[in-house]
């Protein structure tokens, strides 16, 4: 058994004048990516999202990884807004988390430009358990 621990990251929420009106905490983890023996890219902060089916990343990362976006397998995903976006799935991507490596697939999209999302298939299923402690503000990944 091996454990990887990360702490939450706090972000301010600001109003239209730029004044802080609230604060949120997100359970980000640092990952390093590698595509088919290209260069190691990262560490990049990504969000384990237990409500997401798949890994979803912005296409802006593709050139650095050496990935041609549209050579991937075309899919579509639907978010909470109900809006459908086109994604391109690429296989053979290695993710490293503090020395733990696994191979997975990632859906990339021109229409998603937010924090990289780590979903149930392709991330959560690579671990024995993933525990979120909101009180301790920590995430523990067990593999």
């Amino acid at each position, binding site marked *: 058994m091996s454990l990887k621990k990360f*702490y*939450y*990251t*706090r*972000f*301010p*929420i*600001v*109003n*239209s004048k*730029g004044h*802080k009106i*609230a604060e*949120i*905490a*997100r359970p*980000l983890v*640092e990952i390093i990516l590698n595509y088919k023996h290209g260069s190691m*890219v*990262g*560490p*990049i*902060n990504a969000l384990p*999202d237990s*409500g*997401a089916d798949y890994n*979803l990343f*912005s296409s*802006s*990362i593709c*050139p*650095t990884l050496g990935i041609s976006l549209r050579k991937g397998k075309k899919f579509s*995903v639907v*978010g*909470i807004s109900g809006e459908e976006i086109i994604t391109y799935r690429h296989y053979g991507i290695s993710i490293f988390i503090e020395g733990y490596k696994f191979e997975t697939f990632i859906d990339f999209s021109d229409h*998603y*430009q*937010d*924090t*990289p*999302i780590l979903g149930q298939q392709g991330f959560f299923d690579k671990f024995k358990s993933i525990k979120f402690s909101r009180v*301790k*503000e*920590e995430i523990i990944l067990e593999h």
Partner: protein
Amino acid sequence: MKARRIKDIEKYSDQWVALDKSRTRVIIAGKNFQKVYEEANKKAKKSSFMKVPRLDAAFVGK
């Protein structure tokens, strides 16, 4: 509470940033990941990269 805060992060809403090795300070920022990545790797070792969320709205999943 052990959560980290990143200094002046509100200046970088919706941008890619490179963080220093302490992960609490922004050293490079921009809209293009590859440019930020390349600049940061020239300037510093052990950088970490983050797409700062839009800070004028909370996130509830895609």
